[in-house]
């Protein structure tokens, strides 16, 4: 497969996937999903690659799903006006969750190298990786609710606890890398100039262990997470998402409607309105 939206490189047993739509803040569209699916599948069986790094080209890791409305039918919820069957919605939700669950359970250690915006699906990707290293300038958050959408990953409560989960999801608050480290959303934060070097160090350390031993370690750790309910959580999210998507067709008239503003005034305006209400109260870091 010819990659247009990602770059894949290898060095000393480490595979590096770079999300590569820098002019769109590495927003994930259907094409990028397809390419990610492909490279992960192809490389999972390559025993010479002992760790996988995901990072972003240009200004940031990823600003999240591509919200433009073009080439994003898989990465965004099904169109609420299309009159899809419940089965179609459940299928879409299942694919969404299997994709992230697959990365979470990927049979190699994974590292997310985060700088700049890491929002929505960008944040989910970073959470699904085993280790997240961020630069000081990184910003984490999930603005889904402001667009009337449910979050797209169930791991929040396991990582950061009840009250903090509700804080990030209900408010759609953005937090800086230091706070993300404090609440255990990520592993560590380093000065921006040192991010590349630090991730290289982590990745190299991961390649030093026997590859098969690493797989056993990851499997058993993830089995512990399943024992704590994460397995059921993916399915639960699929169902909640389906309810959420069915409800999209009846957004109350007096409430902020992201999609209506996007169609009337354009994406930029819609995102600005989405963020400004919350940022007035909780300024962006």
């Amino acid at each position, binding site marked *: 497969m010819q990659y247009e939206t990602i770059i894949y490189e290898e060095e000393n047993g480490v595979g590096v996937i770079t999300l590569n739509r820098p002019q769109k803040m590495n927003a994930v569209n259907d094409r990028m999903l397809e390419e990610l699916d492909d490279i992960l599948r192809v490389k999972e069986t390559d025993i010479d690659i002992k760790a996988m790094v995901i990072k972003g080209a240009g200004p940031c890791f990823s600003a999240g799903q591509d919200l433009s409305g073009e080439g994003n039918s898989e990465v965004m919820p099904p169109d609420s006006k299309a009159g899809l069957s419940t089965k179609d919605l459940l299928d879409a939700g299942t694919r969404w969750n299997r994709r992230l669950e697959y990365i979470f359970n990927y049979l190699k250690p994974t590292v997310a190298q985060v700088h700049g915006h890491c929002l929505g699906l960008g944040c989910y990707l970073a959470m699904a990786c085993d280790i997240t290293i961020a630069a000081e300038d990184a910003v984490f958050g999930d603005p889904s609710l402001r667009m009337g959408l449910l979050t797209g990953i169930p791991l929040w409560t396991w990582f950061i606890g009840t009250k903090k989960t509700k804080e990030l999801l209900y408010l759609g608050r953005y937090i800086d890398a230091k706070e993300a480290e404090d609440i255990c959303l990520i592993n560590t934060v380093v000065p921006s100039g040192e991010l590349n070097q630090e991730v290289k160090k982590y990745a190299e350390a991961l390649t030093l262990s026997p590859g098969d031993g690493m797989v056993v370690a990851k499997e058993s750790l993830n089995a512990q997470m399943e024992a704590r309910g994460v397995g059921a959580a993916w399915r*639960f999210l699929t169902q909640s998402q389906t309810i959420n998507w069915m409800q999209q067709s009846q957004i109350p008239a007096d409430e902020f409607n992201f999609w209506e503003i996007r169609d009337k005034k354009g994406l930029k305006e819609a995102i600005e309105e989405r963020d400004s209400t919350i940022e007035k109260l909780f300024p962006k870091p």
Partner: protein
Amino acid sequence: MTTFREVTKWKTQYQKRQWEATPYEDREFQSALYEKDGPVARITLNRPEKRNALNDAMFSDLMAGLHKANDDNNVKVVIIRGAGPNFSAGHDLSSPIGEESPPVHPSLAPNVRDFYNIERRRCSKHEDIFNFPKPTIAQVHGYCIGAGLEIQAACDFTIASEDAQFGLRGFGVAPTGLYGHNAGPWPSGSQRQWAGKILPELSGKDMEMTGAINKAVPLDKLEQETNRWAEALAAQSSEALAVTKEFINGMLDITGYGAMWRTHYEGHVMIQWVRFRRDEVSFYKSKKDRGLKGFLQERAMHATPKKKEGSE
């Protein structure tokens, strides 16, 4: 001898959440006040002369307030707070025999089924707050003890004054763990939060540090800060927020939250038969012998570490 069945007016409600079962129409809110300010409903625990100790009347007004806020489509956020010196000092231990809020009085000789029913009702009030379908914020200042602690833990958010005092004292001398039934850090991996869980008492500032509450601010900024959070919540998509809350709480259920509520009230049932050693303080014995204030003094005395021989 009077029995539990004759005295109590409570009947177990399995089919409804307790706020649903508490009517608000024609109610004069007294022990807890209800007011509406745009999209925000405020429920104010209102027995300041008793430090908002929770008795049946206060729980009833609180539940009715939640019921009213639920039914009002314009209400998008509920704030629970306390009038006077503090949020709440916990269950009212001076409540008359037969009230549900304090522990069942042993003289009523309830059987195990009575115990299960009463403890299920007592504890499911907190569970019902936890599952209330609109976002809730606890605005905490001063003491936040026992049942007060449980109420704030069951709210989605807690904003506290830095000098607020969170604690759980139990009916004997033994602290039973700071977060009570509702493990604030559940099921986070943060060791800081687990460490905080076993401490008997923490300030608002320390609670913020452990992650058990969302934010601590100076007392004079508390109301303003709480309103800021309420405003942000009111701006959200209310329907999607309801789904999100149901989803997050579902995640917690998967990890055993449902069983946690159950073990909590089972613990309450078990605690009825705890035998106190002679050097320990029993609530009922001490209250009978010395009165409520005497019990509180005795408990405080026993909870203070004694000086070792020969030390200053």
